Protein backbone atom coordinates (compact mmCIF):
# COMPACT_ATOMS: atom_id res chain seq x y z
CA UNK A 1 0.00 0.00 0.00
CA UNK A 2 2.82 2.34 0.89
CA UNK A 3 4.44 1.75 -2.50
CA UNK A 4 1.18 2.46 -4.27
CA UNK A 5 0.86 5.79 -2.50
CA UNK A 6 4.43 6.78 -3.29
CA UNK A 7 3.89 5.88 -6.91
CA UNK A 8 0.82 8.09 -7.10
CA UNK A 9 2.79 11.01 -5.62
CA UNK A 10 5.59 10.57 -8.14
CA UNK A 11 3.07 10.48 -11.00
CA UNK A 12 1.42 13.61 -9.72
CA UNK A 13 4.72 15.50 -9.57
CA UNK A 14 5.64 14.31 -13.04
CA UNK A 15 2.30 15.54 -14.30
CA UNK A 16 2.89 18.95 -12.77
CA UNK A 17 6.28 19.29 -14.41
CA UNK A 18 4.76 18.33 -17.72
CA UNK A 19 2.00 20.93 -17.38
CA UNK A 20 4.54 23.58 -16.31
CA UNK A 21 6.66 22.83 -19.30
CA UNK A 22 3.75 23.30 -21.66
CA UNK A 23 3.20 26.87 -20.29
CA UNK A 24 6.65 28.25 -21.10
CA UNK A 25 5.39 30.42 -24.00
CA UNK A 26 7.34 33.34 -25.47
CA UNK A 27 7.09 36.56 -23.53
CA UNK A 28 8.54 40.05 -23.38
CA UNK A 29 8.20 42.94 -20.96
CA UNK A 30 8.62 46.68 -21.30
CA UNK A 31 8.66 49.21 -18.50
CA UNK A 32 7.28 52.69 -18.01
CA UNK A 33 9.15 54.02 -15.05
CA UNK A 34 9.77 57.59 -14.00
CA UNK A 35 6.14 58.58 -14.13
CA UNK A 36 5.81 61.48 -11.68
CA UNK A 37 2.97 63.48 -10.29
CA UNK A 38 3.81 66.95 -8.97
CA UNK A 39 1.52 69.49 -7.36
CA UNK A 40 1.41 72.91 -8.97
CA UNK A 41 1.99 76.17 -7.17
CA UNK A 42 -0.30 79.06 -6.56
CA UNK A 43 1.65 82.10 -5.47
CA UNK A 44 0.46 85.68 -5.42
CA UNK A 45 2.87 88.57 -5.64
CA UNK A 46 1.86 92.09 -4.70
CA UNK A 47 4.00 94.76 -6.33
CA UNK A 48 6.59 92.06 -7.15
CA UNK A 49 6.90 90.84 -3.60
CA UNK A 50 5.44 88.95 -0.73
CA UNK A 51 5.63 91.56 1.96
CA UNK A 52 3.09 94.10 3.11
CA UNK A 53 2.73 96.95 0.65
CA UNK A 54 1.99 100.40 2.01
CA UNK A 55 0.57 101.98 -1.10
CA UNK A 56 -0.02 105.49 0.14
CA UNK A 57 0.83 107.56 3.17
CA UNK A 58 -0.40 111.04 2.44
CA UNK A 59 -0.68 113.86 4.90
CA UNK A 60 -1.80 117.45 5.10
CA UNK A 61 -4.59 116.93 2.60
CA UNK A 62 -7.43 119.38 2.11
CA UNK A 63 -10.79 119.58 0.36
CA UNK A 64 -10.26 119.38 -3.37
CA UNK A 65 -7.22 117.11 -3.12
CA UNK A 66 -7.13 113.83 -5.00
CA UNK A 67 -4.77 110.91 -5.32
CA UNK A 68 -4.35 107.45 -6.76
CA UNK A 69 -2.63 104.18 -5.98
CA UNK A 70 -2.31 101.05 -8.09
CA UNK A 71 -1.38 97.59 -6.88
CA UNK A 72 0.28 95.21 -9.32
CA UNK A 73 -1.10 91.74 -8.80
CA UNK A 74 0.73 88.78 -10.34
CA UNK A 75 0.16 85.06 -10.17
CA UNK A 76 3.72 83.78 -10.12
CA UNK A 77 2.60 80.21 -9.54
CA UNK A 78 1.84 77.50 -12.06
CA UNK A 79 -1.85 77.08 -11.30
CA UNK A 80 -4.58 79.38 -12.56
CA UNK A 81 -6.35 81.26 -9.78
CA UNK A 82 -9.09 83.66 -8.84
CA UNK A 83 -8.46 86.91 -7.03
CA UNK A 84 -10.56 88.37 -4.21
CA UNK A 85 -10.08 91.60 -2.29
CA UNK A 86 -11.03 90.86 1.27
CA UNK A 87 -10.97 91.40 4.13
CA UNK A 88 -10.69 95.17 4.23
CA UNK A 89 -10.03 97.12 7.39
CA UNK A 90 -10.71 100.81 7.98
CA UNK A 91 -10.08 103.05 10.95
CA UNK A 92 -10.52 106.76 11.60
CA UNK A 93 -8.94 109.16 14.02
CA UNK A 94 -9.84 112.76 14.71
CA UNK A 95 -6.38 113.54 16.04
CA UNK A 96 -6.40 117.20 16.96
CA UNK A 97 -9.24 119.60 17.59
CA UNK A 98 -8.54 123.13 16.50
CA UNK A 99 -10.89 126.08 16.71
CA UNK A 100 -12.40 125.88 13.20
CA UNK A 101 -13.16 122.17 13.59
CA UNK A 102 -14.69 122.64 17.02
CA UNK A 103 -16.83 125.44 15.67
CA UNK A 104 -18.50 123.21 13.04
CA UNK A 105 -19.36 121.69 15.56
CA UNK A 106 -17.69 118.31 15.57
CA UNK A 107 -18.97 116.08 18.36
CA UNK A 108 -15.95 113.79 18.04
CA UNK A 109 -13.42 116.59 17.81
CA UNK A 110 -10.03 115.32 18.94
CA UNK A 111 -11.20 111.83 19.86
CA UNK A 112 -9.40 108.63 18.96
CA UNK A 113 -11.47 106.62 16.50
CA UNK A 114 -13.85 109.49 15.97
CA UNK A 115 -12.48 110.99 12.80
CA UNK A 116 -14.67 112.21 9.96
CA UNK A 117 -12.32 111.86 7.00
CA UNK A 118 -13.57 108.53 5.65
CA UNK A 119 -17.13 109.87 5.70
CA UNK A 120 -15.98 112.83 3.63
CA UNK A 121 -13.72 111.07 1.18
CA UNK A 122 -14.77 109.45 -2.08
CA UNK A 123 -12.99 106.37 -3.31
CA UNK A 124 -13.17 104.34 -6.48
CA UNK A 125 -11.70 100.83 -6.27
CA UNK A 126 -11.57 98.83 -9.46
CA UNK A 127 -9.68 96.29 -11.52
CA UNK A 128 -7.61 98.50 -13.78
CA UNK A 129 -7.06 96.17 -16.71
CA UNK A 130 -4.90 98.57 -18.71
CA UNK A 131 -3.18 100.09 -15.69
CA UNK A 132 -4.03 103.66 -16.62
CA UNK A 133 -5.52 104.59 -13.19
CA UNK A 134 -8.74 105.62 -14.93
CA UNK A 135 -11.91 103.63 -14.68
CA UNK A 136 -12.72 102.63 -18.25
CA UNK A 137 -16.34 101.67 -18.73
CA UNK A 138 -16.55 98.27 -20.33
CA UNK A 139 -12.89 97.53 -19.83
CA UNK A 140 -12.41 97.71 -16.11
CA UNK A 141 -14.24 95.89 -13.35
CA UNK A 142 -15.64 97.93 -10.46
CA UNK A 143 -15.11 96.68 -6.93
CA UNK A 144 -16.41 99.59 -4.84
CA UNK A 145 -17.39 103.18 -5.50
CA UNK A 146 -18.56 105.59 -2.82
CA UNK A 147 -17.55 107.12 0.46
CA UNK A 148 -14.56 105.44 2.04
CA UNK A 149 -16.62 104.97 5.20
CA UNK A 150 -19.03 102.81 3.23
CA UNK A 151 -16.49 100.27 2.08
CA UNK A 152 -17.32 96.87 3.45
CA UNK A 153 -14.86 94.81 5.42
CA UNK A 154 -15.83 91.74 3.43
CA UNK A 155 -17.95 90.79 0.48
CA UNK A 156 -15.65 91.64 -2.38
CA UNK A 157 -15.47 88.02 -3.43
CA UNK A 158 -14.79 89.20 -6.93
CA UNK A 159 -13.25 85.99 -8.23
CA UNK A 160 -11.23 87.80 -10.83
CA UNK A 161 -9.54 85.23 -13.04
CA UNK A 162 -5.76 85.42 -12.79
CA UNK A 163 -4.05 82.71 -14.76
CA UNK A 164 -0.62 81.40 -13.99
CA UNK A 165 1.94 83.98 -14.95
CA UNK A 166 -0.70 86.66 -15.52
CA UNK A 167 -0.59 90.19 -14.16
CA UNK A 168 -3.47 92.48 -13.36
CA UNK A 169 -3.87 95.79 -11.60
CA UNK A 170 -6.16 97.18 -8.94
CA UNK A 171 -6.43 100.93 -8.60
CA UNK A 172 -7.85 103.03 -5.81
CA UNK A 173 -8.59 106.64 -6.65
CA UNK A 174 -9.52 108.96 -3.80
CA UNK A 175 -10.70 112.51 -3.53
CA UNK A 176 -11.83 114.87 -0.81
CA UNK A 177 -14.83 116.89 -2.03
CA UNK A 178 -14.60 120.65 -1.85
CA UNK A 179 -17.72 120.53 0.29
CA UNK A 180 -16.01 118.56 3.06
CA UNK A 181 -15.38 121.59 5.24
CA UNK A 182 -13.66 122.06 8.55
CA UNK A 183 -15.01 118.89 10.15
CA UNK A 184 -12.15 116.89 8.64
CA UNK A 185 -9.36 119.16 9.83
CA UNK A 186 -6.37 117.04 10.92
CA UNK A 187 -8.45 113.83 10.74
CA UNK A 188 -6.94 110.63 9.35
CA UNK A 189 -8.15 107.37 7.85
CA UNK A 190 -6.16 104.16 7.62
CA UNK A 191 -7.05 101.48 5.11
CA UNK A 192 -5.92 97.87 5.07
CA UNK A 193 -6.54 95.52 2.18
CA UNK A 194 -5.96 91.80 1.72
CA UNK A 195 -5.60 90.28 -1.72
CA UNK A 196 -6.38 86.59 -1.85
CA UNK A 197 -5.59 84.32 -4.76
CA UNK A 198 -7.60 81.13 -4.61
CA UNK A 199 -7.53 78.07 -6.77
CA UNK A 200 -11.28 78.12 -7.22
CA UNK A 201 -13.76 80.91 -7.72
CA UNK A 202 -15.68 79.80 -4.66
CA UNK A 203 -12.85 80.36 -2.24
Amino acid at each position, binding site marked *: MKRIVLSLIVLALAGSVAIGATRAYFSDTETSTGNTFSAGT*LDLNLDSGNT*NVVKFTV*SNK*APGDTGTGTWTIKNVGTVNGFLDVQPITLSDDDNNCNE*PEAAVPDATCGSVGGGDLSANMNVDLFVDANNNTIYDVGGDTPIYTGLLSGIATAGYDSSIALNAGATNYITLNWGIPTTAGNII*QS*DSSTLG*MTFELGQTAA*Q
Partner: protein
Amino acid sequence: MKRIILSLILVSLIAVFAVNSSQAYLSDTETSNSNSTTAGSLNLNLVAGYLSVTDPITASGLTPGGTVSRFVAFQNSGTIAISRVGATSVFLSGFSYLYNKLGLRIYDAPSYVRGALLLDTNLKDLSNYTIWTTLAPLGATTGIRDVEVYLPSDVDGSYQNLTTTWQFNFLGQQ
Protein backbone atom coordinates in the same frame (compact mmCIF):
# COMPACT_ATOMS: atom_id res chain seq x y z
CA MET B 1 -23.84 43.34 14.82
CA LYS B 2 -20.99 45.10 16.64
CA ARG B 3 -18.72 44.61 13.62
CA ILE B 4 -21.33 46.09 11.31
CA ILE B 5 -21.63 49.22 13.46
CA LEU B 6 -17.86 49.65 13.66
CA SER B 7 -17.63 49.27 9.91
CA LEU B 8 -20.26 51.92 9.35
CA ILE B 9 -18.43 54.33 11.68
CA LEU B 10 -15.17 53.69 9.85
CA VAL B 11 -16.81 54.27 6.48
CA SER B 12 -18.33 57.53 7.76
CA LEU B 13 -14.97 58.76 9.04
CA ILE B 14 -13.35 58.01 5.72
CA ALA B 15 -16.11 59.88 3.91
CA VAL B 16 -15.70 62.95 6.13
CA PHE B 17 -11.97 62.91 5.61
CA ALA B 18 -12.45 62.66 1.88
CA VAL B 19 -14.81 65.67 1.81
CA ASN B 20 -12.44 67.81 3.87
CA SER B 21 -9.54 66.86 1.70
CA SER B 22 -11.38 67.97 -1.41
CA GLN B 23 -11.80 71.50 0.09
CA ALA B 24 -8.14 72.09 0.80
CA TYR B 25 -7.55 74.07 -2.38
CA LEU B 26 -4.45 76.12 -2.93
CA SER B 27 -4.52 79.74 -1.90
CA ASP B 28 -2.18 82.61 -1.16
CA THR B 29 -2.80 86.05 0.32
CA GLU B 30 -0.85 89.28 0.32
CA THR B 31 -1.66 92.38 2.32
CA SER B 32 -1.55 96.09 1.81
CA ASN B 33 -2.11 97.53 5.24
CA SER B 34 -1.40 100.87 6.88
CA ASN B 35 -2.42 102.96 3.89
CA SER B 36 -3.26 106.29 5.44
CA THR B 37 -4.63 109.64 4.44
CA THR B 38 -4.50 112.56 6.82
CA ALA B 39 -6.14 115.91 6.38
CA GLY B 40 -4.24 119.05 7.19
CA SER B 41 -5.56 122.04 9.08
CA LEU B 42 -6.29 125.63 8.22
CA ASN B 43 -6.68 128.08 11.04
CA LEU B 44 -6.77 131.83 10.51
CA ASN B 45 -5.91 133.85 13.56
CA LEU B 46 -6.05 137.55 14.30
CA VAL B 47 -2.81 138.43 15.99
CA ALA B 48 -3.37 139.55 19.55
CA GLY B 49 -2.91 143.19 20.31
CA TYR B 50 -4.52 144.43 17.14
CA LEU B 51 -8.06 144.43 15.77
CA SER B 52 -9.82 141.37 17.15
CA VAL B 53 -13.02 140.17 18.78
CA THR B 54 -11.81 141.35 22.13
CA ASP B 55 -10.18 144.45 20.73
CA PRO B 56 -12.62 146.10 18.29
CA ILE B 57 -12.68 149.52 16.65
CA THR B 58 -14.46 151.93 18.92
CA ALA B 59 -14.99 155.62 18.51
CA SER B 60 -17.14 158.20 20.16
CA GLY B 61 -17.63 161.87 19.52
CA LEU B 62 -16.65 161.61 15.90
CA THR B 63 -17.24 164.76 13.91
CA PRO B 64 -17.63 165.06 10.13
CA GLY B 65 -14.35 164.01 8.57
CA GLY B 66 -13.26 162.24 11.75
CA THR B 67 -11.45 158.89 11.56
CA VAL B 68 -10.53 155.97 13.73
CA SER B 69 -8.14 153.21 12.64
CA ARG B 70 -6.64 149.96 13.84
CA PHE B 71 -4.06 147.56 12.48
CA VAL B 72 -5.29 144.09 11.77
CA ALA B 73 -2.77 141.27 11.53
CA PHE B 74 -3.47 137.82 10.13
CA GLN B 75 -1.66 134.59 10.84
CA ASN B 76 -2.23 130.98 9.81
CA SER B 77 -1.62 128.52 12.62
CA GLY B 78 -2.75 125.58 10.48
CA THR B 79 -0.69 123.27 8.30
CA ILE B 80 -2.26 124.23 4.97
CA ALA B 81 -1.48 127.53 3.28
CA ILE B 82 -4.16 130.19 3.15
CA SER B 83 -4.36 131.62 -0.34
CA ARG B 84 -6.76 134.42 0.41
CA VAL B 85 -8.36 136.31 3.29
CA GLY B 86 -11.71 137.84 2.53
CA ALA B 87 -13.15 140.70 4.58
CA THR B 88 -16.83 141.46 5.02
CA SER B 89 -18.64 144.02 7.14
CA VAL B 90 -21.98 143.14 8.74
CA PHE B 91 -24.32 145.60 10.48
CA LEU B 92 -25.29 144.41 13.94
CA SER B 93 -27.23 147.04 15.83
CA GLY B 94 -27.83 150.74 16.34
CA PHE B 95 -28.58 153.11 13.51
CA SER B 96 -28.17 151.56 10.10
CA TYR B 97 -28.64 155.10 8.85
CA LEU B 98 -25.22 155.92 10.28
CA TYR B 99 -23.69 152.57 9.35
CA ASN B 100 -24.67 153.09 5.74
CA LYS B 101 -22.93 156.44 5.72
CA LEU B 102 -19.61 155.42 7.26
CA GLY B 103 -16.61 155.21 4.98
CA LEU B 104 -13.83 152.62 5.05
CA ARG B 105 -10.23 152.81 3.94
CA ILE B 106 -7.81 149.91 3.94
CA TYR B 107 -4.09 150.57 3.71
CA ASP B 108 -1.10 148.35 3.25
CA ALA B 109 0.87 148.31 6.50
CA PRO B 110 4.21 146.53 6.31
CA SER B 111 5.82 146.33 9.72
CA TYR B 112 2.78 148.08 11.18
CA VAL B 113 3.48 151.30 9.31
CA ARG B 114 0.73 152.74 7.12
CA GLY B 115 1.52 152.34 3.47
CA ALA B 116 -0.37 152.62 0.21
CA LEU B 117 -4.13 153.07 0.12
CA LEU B 118 -5.70 149.85 -1.15
CA LEU B 119 -9.41 150.49 -0.84
CA ASP B 120 -11.72 153.43 -0.19
CA THR B 121 -15.40 152.51 -0.06
CA ASN B 122 -18.52 152.62 2.06
CA LEU B 123 -18.28 150.36 5.10
CA LYS B 124 -21.57 148.70 4.14
CA ASP B 125 -20.14 147.75 0.76
CA LEU B 126 -17.27 145.72 2.16
CA SER B 127 -18.15 142.23 0.96
CA ASN B 128 -15.60 139.45 0.66
CA TYR B 129 -12.89 141.92 -0.25
CA THR B 130 -9.48 140.30 -0.63
CA ILE B 131 -7.71 142.00 2.20
CA TRP B 132 -4.73 139.63 2.09
CA THR B 133 -3.31 136.85 -0.06
CA THR B 134 -1.07 133.93 0.78
CA LEU B 135 -0.47 133.12 4.39
CA ALA B 136 2.06 130.34 4.81
CA PRO B 137 1.19 127.60 7.29
CA LEU B 138 2.33 127.35 10.86
CA GLY B 139 2.40 131.08 11.38
CA ALA B 140 5.43 131.61 9.22
CA THR B 141 4.11 134.92 7.90
CA THR B 142 1.87 137.68 9.12
CA GLY B 143 -0.40 139.76 6.96
CA ILE B 144 -0.89 143.31 8.19
CA ARG B 145 -3.38 145.92 7.07
CA ASP B 146 -4.43 149.26 8.49
CA VAL B 147 -8.22 149.58 8.68
CA GLU B 148 -9.66 153.06 8.95
CA VAL B 149 -13.30 153.96 9.42
CA TYR B 150 -14.38 157.53 8.89
CA LEU B 151 -17.41 159.76 9.02
CA PRO B 152 -17.60 161.62 5.72
CA SER B 153 -17.12 165.34 5.94
CA ASP B 154 -20.35 166.02 4.06
CA VAL B 155 -22.69 164.54 6.70
CA ASP B 156 -25.30 166.89 8.06
CA GLY B 157 -26.64 167.33 11.53
CA SER B 158 -29.03 164.40 11.25
CA TYR B 159 -26.17 162.06 12.20
CA GLN B 160 -25.52 163.70 15.53
CA ASN B 161 -25.53 161.42 18.58
CA LEU B 162 -26.16 158.30 16.54
CA THR B 163 -24.49 155.02 17.39
CA THR B 164 -23.91 151.94 15.30
CA THR B 165 -22.28 148.56 15.84
CA TRP B 166 -20.98 146.28 13.12
CA GLN B 167 -18.81 143.24 12.74
CA PHE B 168 -15.87 142.47 10.49
CA ASN B 169 -15.73 138.90 9.25
CA PHE B 170 -12.41 137.65 7.98
CA LEU B 171 -12.49 134.42 6.03
CA GLY B 172 -9.31 132.48 5.35
CA GLN B 173 -9.49 130.13 2.38
CA GLN B 174 -7.16 127.34 1.28
